[in-house]
């Protein structure tokens, strides 16, 4: 199957039906391995057992940002190439990205209380992450409240591309400003600053969360295609009933 064939929603649905069970199984297996490793990981010499929150917080943060990156690519597909699945991909990713951003914020807050002594500070990293959540909610509202789905899709695509400006702000906020949040310790020049006994479980959990994201995203895209089919059929039914009564 050529890549261009996936532009056809029916072929895409067939592919999703084939891939989804394997992806779901891989997600469960990698999560099981990751959780066992996370529970058996040693305590941090400074933070103690609270380092276990990192195995949720960091992957959720990455996926919150990856969700918006994916939506930005989909927005380009909607506005520039008018790819039939681009808008479907963007709309399906928004609630998932919002959920992972929410997990990041809540677990970060729960990690911050014992580590920093506070649940929340208005520093640049935390605030830009909260802005990301609000942007997600704004895009979801645009998608779900627009009377004309095509206009809603274009408006959401524009908002997504504008909101993408927040991504480098999130990433570099800890370098540009003096923040309570620590600077990057995994993806940084000179390699990771984390010991492998903690880094490996973290990477396995990140893989598990990524598999979960793509499993749910494919399933949500399938639902969105079906929702559009339902809408088309209901419009045709209403039109036919109107013609019959005229």
């Amino acid at each position, binding site marked *: 199957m050529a890549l261009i064939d996936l532009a056809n929603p029916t072929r895409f649905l067939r592919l999703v039906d084939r891939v989804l069970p394997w992806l779901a199984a891989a997600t469960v297996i990698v999560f099981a391995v990751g959780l066992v490793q996370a529970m058996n990981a040693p305590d941090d010499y400074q933070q103690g057992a609270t380092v276990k929150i990192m195995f949720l917080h960091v992957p959720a943060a990455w996926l919150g940002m990856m969700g918006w990156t994916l939506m930005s690519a989909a927005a380009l597909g909607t506005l520039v190439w008018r790819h039939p699945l681009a808008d479907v991909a963007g709309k399906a990713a928004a609630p998932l990205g919002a959920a992972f951003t929410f997990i990041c914020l809540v677990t970060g807050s729960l990690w911050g209380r014992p580590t920093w002594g506070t649940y929340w500070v208005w520093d640049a990293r935390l605030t830009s992450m909260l802005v990301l959540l609000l942007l997600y909610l704004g895009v979801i509202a645009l998608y779900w409240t627009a009377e004309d789905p095509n206009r809603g899709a274009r408006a959401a695509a524009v908002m997504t591309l504008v909101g993408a400006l927040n991504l480098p702000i999130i990433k570099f906020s800890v370098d540009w400003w003096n923040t309570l949040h620590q600077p990057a310790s995994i993806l940084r020049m000179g390699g990771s600053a984390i010991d492998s006994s903690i880094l490996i479980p973290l990477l396995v959990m990140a893989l598990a969360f990524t598999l979960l994201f793509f499993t749910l995203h494919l399933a949500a895209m399938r639902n969105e295609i079906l929702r559009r089919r339902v809408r088309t059929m209901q419009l045709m039914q209403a039109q*036919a009933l109107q013609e019959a009564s005229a």
Partner: protein
Amino acid sequence: MMGSLGPHADFIIASYAVTAFVVAAMVAWVVLDHSALKRVLGDLEQQGVTRRSWRKDGA
């Protein structure tokens, strides 16, 4: 397990509980949405509605 998680066990358990709840909610949303959409599609097809054409005999 509470003991092995140290003095901040509540925060760790709360983090995992919130994450589990949100992940379960996402999975439930996708699964329930899919079954509801399939049901509506099935009902429409039973009424003779197709995406390509409207069969008047099924109206």
